């Protein structure tokens, strides 16, 4: 029963931190553009969990509202990202970030 009833702020934060870590891991280690962007989504969702958890435990609606905006913008970002990645695929025939380097460093 404890598991169901004593979920506190820290539970959420831990989940969020794990998600954040996973996202960051994906961003850092993966070369595929889509996977990197998915990593970003993970981070955004980690932030959402944070916001909602804090909102619940601090009181106030700001966090909820904030997370709503985050979701929306994440979706918009995903849309733009998808469009750009499609364009990249048409141009380069790959979505591997490391092989897209026609611009010299």
């Amino acid at each position, binding site marked *: 029963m404890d598991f169901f009833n004593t979920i506190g702020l820290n539970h959420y934060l831990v989940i969020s931190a794990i998600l954040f870590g996973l996202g960051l891991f994906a961003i850092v280690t993966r070369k595929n553009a889509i996977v*990197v*962007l998915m990593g970003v989504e993970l981070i955004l969702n980690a932030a959402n969990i944070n916001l909602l958890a804090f909102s619940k435990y601090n009181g106030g609606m700001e966090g909820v509202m904030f997370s709503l*905006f985050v979701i929306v*913008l994440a979706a918009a970002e995903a849309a733009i990202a998808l469009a750009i990645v499609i364009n990249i695929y048409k141009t380069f025939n790959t979505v591997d970030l490391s092989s*897209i380097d*026609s611009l010299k*460093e």
Partner: protein
Amino acid sequence: MYELPSGAEIQAIITTLKSSAAYYLPEIYLSALFLVLILVDLIFRPKKHHLLSITSLVGLAGSLWFIWQQHTMAGQEIFFGMYVIDEFAIFFKYFFVLSGILTVFLSMSSDELNNRASGVGEYYVLVVGMVIGMVMMASSTDLVMIFVSMELVSFSAYVLTGYLKREQRSTEASLKYLVYGAVSSGLMIYGFSILYGLTGETNISEISSVLIARGYDPVTFMIASIMILTGIGYKVGAVPFHFWSPDVYEGAPIPVTALLSVASKAAGFALLIRFFYVAVPHGTEAVAFTPGSEWLMLLMILSVASMIYGNVVALWQKNVKRLLAYSSIAHAGYILLGIIVMDELGTQATLFYMLSYLFMNFGAFLVAVIIANKTGSENIEDYRGLGRRMPLTGAAMTVFLISLVGLPPTVGFIGKLMIFSALLAKGSVFVWLALIGILTSVISLYYYMLIPLNMYLRESKQPLPDTIKTGLLPRLVTACLMLLTLYFGIFFTPLSDLAHFAVTLFGNQLY
């Protein structure tokens, strides 16, 4: 869990919203312009860009009137404190609209855009969209608003960067911009969430007062700070968040590069100033272990790294846009110097520097557009022998570059002068920063002068016609920018007063 507000409360909310809307007219107007542009594009399906560009020009110019109206309203908080109108914000509104106008001019002159097979329908719409976002960034005082406006800018910029979608480099640039942008905004939002957790507030002035009143865990705050700084640092293109900028600047259409390097950067700085001065609690002196000094330290590192890295790496660049990209990293470093000072004079210097950067950088990019139109190239090598053949353009480019170096009698010199004045006015604390700034600007001379060097001192390998004609509009705008750069280099009082006037946040003088 959450109770719906009572009827009276709802009425109060609506009253606030209604009254706020009156203070929100420039943004509303610009959004309407955004829609009108879409409709113009849809209804008239213009083959040429003139209709669209002129509509956006007129529209943007019209918004200046609305912004002008706001001077009487300065010091207002609207939308429950999410948004403020103060002289600082108004200054930046002018700035962004002006840069939007200049971008439109640049775009009208740019062949790479106008020769695009599928037209430039969305282009101007997105430019206006970016202007709206930046205008909102300057006024936002709430984490939500900050995030939303920043993303509006970013999204428009992603698309604009990849606007030449048939060109490999443009596409690639947009991807890189997107990936770095998405990651940094993700980090920033995570930082925001931590900050929200620390304080339970999203309004930045509330955050500051809660942090002061309640105290905070320095480590947590530092982590949040770094994450937030990632997002803002990405916008301003400071080292180490600069990775995107050379590639993006090189790949994007030149007008977009100009917009990114000036306006988007300035928007980042506007945000940084507001956020740093308002949200972050700090002492007035840069003493270690006072609250906020961690931010100061971070900013110093950013600034020094940007100045050194940007200027040194620029030495090896062969592409003008890339060169200007690194130079803009370096300039971000200089502007950060002004912010570090954390006083009125510093902010004034920062604002002035940005204004000067607006003139000179747009000028330099305009010349790059003109030359790219004629030679189809952005390589410095291909600038050989052009100075004599395009006298006005060459002279203008020289003036802009001299201004970027920071030599008199140009506006860039005054910008540097004010930044360094602000640093030295603090006594000897920041002298080392000023020294680094000075030394790096000497380095910058070398690479900036590469362009006049090629334009004047070297003769091109291919035979070129004796004179190269350019269009009337680009010439006119170039000449205007050149004269402004020189004029404000000699009589800079108006600009400086403007900047000084703008150093009021929330209707209060800073400090």
